């Protein structure tokens, strides 16, 4: 009996050890593969970062990630590489992005509040239409919108890029907020209504303070998407003083790029900095936003 038990433990012990070894080897292999993929993924980015600090003559002779000497020349050259300095482009991009965030937060949240909490005739009908607009490719409304803004005299200003945000044109965020608002217990509004609160106060004092996570998600994604937006500025902004960073880069790459890659890389790196900062500070929020809602990026 005792021997049997002993044998059993010995056998399972050996088996366990074998399994553990196998698992260990597999896990090391998996790490090697993952590290390899990570290197391939990051190499181009890090190479561009390194290239932006290299003296101009070294940029393409080197595939390494550590510049032999650090020079900020490319940054100074790139900053003033076009007729208008990149400082203006950055300021324009920031202005448009901040206003877009404000517009999306204000307009999408009141709309979502109406859909999630207020009773009115036709709510289901409008809600279905709102979801329908999610499927509509922007090309379908593009040309009449352009003609409208042209006739309003808004072309070459930020208005065509910002005003739609204040009219809740990003149906995706309305949907996201409706989902979140529905999860807030209804008893809270009912109690507030008993105390004589109107819908506006319920929205301001109950809904908004309880919805900070979804508001933050909407704010971060709106900022990043607006910052990255290329098509809107391309259509509406043609005066270089109104350019965003994306348009500045495009002009740079098409005009002087063949002679000044360093400047181009330096400005490209700078244009990624705000997104990277959001990535560092809001990584959890971004990843959860994608995992739960399937946002495209």
């Amino acid at each position, binding site marked *: 009996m005792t021997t049997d038990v002993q044998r059993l433990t010995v056998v399972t012990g050996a088996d366990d050890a074998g399994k553990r070894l196998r698992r260990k080897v597999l*896990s090391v292999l*998996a*790490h090697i*593969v*993952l590290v390899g993929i*990570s290197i391939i*993924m*990051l190499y*181009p*980015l890090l*190479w*561009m970062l390194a290239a932006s600090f290299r003296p101009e003559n070294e940029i393409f002779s080197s595939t390494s990630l550590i510049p032999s000497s650090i020079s900020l020349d490319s940054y100074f050259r790139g900053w003033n590489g076009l007729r208008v300095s990149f400082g203006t482009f950055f300021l324009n991009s920031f202005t448009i992005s901040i206003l877009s965030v404000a517009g999306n937060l204000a307009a999408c949240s*009141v709309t979502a*509040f*109406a859909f999630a909490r*207020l*009773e*009115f*005739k036709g*709510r289901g009908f409008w809600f279905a239409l*709102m979801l329908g*607009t999610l*499927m*509509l*490719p*922007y*090309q*379908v*409304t593009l040309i*009449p*919108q352009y003609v*409208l803004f042209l006739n309003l005299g808004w072309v070459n200003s930020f208005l065509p890029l910002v005003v*739609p945000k204040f*009219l809740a*044109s990003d149906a995706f965020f309305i949907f996201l907020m409706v989902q979140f608002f529905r999860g807030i217990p209804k008893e809270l509004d009912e109690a507030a*209504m008993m105390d004589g609160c*109107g*819908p*506006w*106060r319920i*929205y301001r004092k109950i809904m908004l303070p309880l919805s900070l996570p979804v508001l933050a998600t909407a704010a971060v994604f709106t900022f990043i998407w607006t910052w*990255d937006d290329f098509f809107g500025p*391309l259509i509406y902004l043609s005066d270089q003083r109104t350019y965003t960073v994306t348009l500045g*880069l495009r002009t740079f*790459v098409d005009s002087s790029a063949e002679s000044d890659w360093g400047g181009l890389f330096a400005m*490209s790196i700078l*244009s*990624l900095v705000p*997104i*990277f900062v959001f*990535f560092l500070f809001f*990584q959890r929020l*971004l*990843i959860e936003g*994608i*995992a*739960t809602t*399937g946002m*495209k*990026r």
Partner: protein
Amino acid sequence: MAVDNTLPASGATSRPAAAPASWWSRFWAQNGSGYLFLLPWLIGFFCLTIGPALISLYLSFTDFDLLTQPDWVGAANYERIFTSDPKFVQSMKVTLFFVLFSVPLKLVFALAVAMLLNKGMKGLPIYRAVFYLPSLLGASVAIAVLWRKLFAGDGLVNHLLAYIGITGPSWISNPRYSLWTLIILAIWQFGSPMIIFLAGLRQIPNDMYEAASLDGASRWRQFVKITVPLLTPVIFFNAVIQTIDAFKSFTPAFIISSGTGNPINSTLFYTLYLYQEAFGFFRMGYASALAWVLLAIIAIFTAFSFLTSRYWVHYDD
């Protein structure tokens, strides 16, 4: 928002209506606050969405050129698109090729890496962050600029290939490879579908695998018989989102080809062609027709995938 606290409360109970209330005042008492809150969206919906969409449908039957009044031309634009426009055919080919290669490759890669990460890997947050970063940055002009320089004749890729004795061509100016550089850029952004896959994999109960391995099922069999079927809703979701996105892709092709779609139209994405027609040649009527064809293609594709999904997507009962 210029709405204040004096809004009529929803729910007519709070204020007894005046005796001979008109239809309108009764309607307003019950629905007014809802519509006030909806007002910004309603204005946007009529002025920026449904109004322009209907006008664009009308323009697609005209020869509108932005400067002169649009003249009705019947179905001439659509006729030209489907019978005698080689550039439409080319842009459709380019777009479909891009969709057919970039989406499956990206999803296979995303799923493979998600599977590797799912097994309680140490350092998961770091890997996840590293793989997600390109997805976040990838849509920016800066990355398209980088790609244009990576795959140029004297770009980084060829410098690396030179180490193993290969003299690479200028990838972006060779029509045989130019579209592939864009497909690689799309695959490089596999991070966000990977995160969605990871969330899906976590939903699969571990005891299913334990039961299967007690029954002697191999890893591969477990993958085919448990993981894939239970993951089909997530696969379906990712495939639809990524495909619609790929159809609408614009910026990388624009930057890499300086807006031309060259070499010899090998990167002429559908959206790029539409942009050229509308804002390069100001053939706005024709571009409107192109936009409606795009809507139809996306709608047909979406309907098709939802219809076929019931044969291969397993939802919990």
